[in-house]
């Protein structure tokens, strides 16, 4: 139920469609569930639909947490 993948919107099209890019592979998907998208946004795609926008700031924060791990004492969050 969860095979979904982050993909970059490279072109917005008519009728709630967009073309996305995943590692050089492009695919046409439906964006009707996410109003307000622009080219360059990253979205989570499942069965040909964009379900959620990737929040780049949150992504950076999550990654940064991993990098800091070494310095964290046990029990901290």
């Amino acid at each position, binding site marked *: *139920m*969860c*095979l*979904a*993948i*982050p993909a*970059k919107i490279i072109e917005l099209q008519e009728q709630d469609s967009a073309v996305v890019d*995943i*590692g050089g592979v492009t695919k046409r*998907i*439906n964006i*009707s*569930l*996410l*109003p307000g998208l622009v080219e360059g946004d*990253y979205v*989570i795609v*499942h*069965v*040909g*639909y964009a*379900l*959620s926008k*990737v*929040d*780049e700031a*949150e*992504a950076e*924060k*999550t*990654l940064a*947490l*991993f*990098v800091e*791990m*070494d310095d*964290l004492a*046990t*029990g901290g*969050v």
Partner: protein
Amino acid sequence: MKYIDDFRDRDLIDKLIQSIHRDVQTDKQYRLMEFCGGHTHSLYRYGLLELLPDNIKMIHGPGCPVCVLPRGRLDNAIVLAEHPDVILCSYGDMLRVPASGKKTLLKARAEGGDVRMVYSTTDALQVARDNPDKQVVFFAVGFETTTPPTASVLKIVEQQEIKNFSVFCNHVLTPPAMRGILAQDDVTIDGFVGPGHVSTVIGRDAYGFAARDYGKPVVVSGFEPLDLLRGIQLLVRQLNEGRSEVENEYSRAVTDTGNTVAQQLMDEVFSLREQFEWRGLGMIPGSALQISDAYADYDAEKRFNTPPVSSSDHNACECAAILCGRKRPEDCKVFGTACTPENPLGSCMVSSEGACAAYYTYGRHQKRIAS
């Protein structure tokens, strides 16, 4: 691939594993259920289980919509496919699942039924447009991740009055299923790894009940190795500190309230079934969706009068216990012998993310046999 490769960084994974090993308390058992079949699949395919400390036991949950679909519903789908005027469109996952008498959708196709694999509901709609003389039935399965695409296409079909399209709806819901598991008598689960992509739709707040009503922590996690391991770590820390909260590891894709556009669409197009049979788990109230009255014209069950078909599993099948964490695949007498992915006897073996199938396909080499 952006947002994929970064979360597969080997060095960071090694560090995270070491950190988890430091976090676990040696005298404590951590029994964590990863609800989602996609997480089960990731654990096995990436080989993560053996990297975890021994006192973390991952219990594989029923979040595999292919696995929990009752065989009777698949029988219904096959009968629909065999109808001379029907083109049955289905996601690839369902095509080889055996129904009663070991029949599958692919076998039905070999015998003349028009069964077409689609990647998306929009493809199914296109089949309907291309074949105006046929009735296209879309075989809808899946949790809340997969439900909005079905809702979306139904809305289009209703607006444009596309008469040769209908949906055979088998969508199921995550929070009621979790409640169903937690409501059992001898629950041996300490916390949940929450399904990442379902949560992009339903939002982090949907899991509040687990913490509030049952005192179980939930950490919503993504699917890359770093995400999954971090979700496990956060659960370990909550349990160490006696907390039971809902945390969101997958914050780059999951918000507190989820995708409200998708939720509104689902509310409009679907209504709740009073109860639904889950293969291996039995009847769970309020756990599944049916097409709402406003869209009844496009409900394949009504259009084709599909009868309820009940079907029970082999009596040696231990899926019910495995799905709730009381037993492991290896504990089942027929695991790997009479019951294999090629010839599945129960729900856990039916798709590659079912607990038994995942263990069989990716993990059975771990079983030490004296050679």
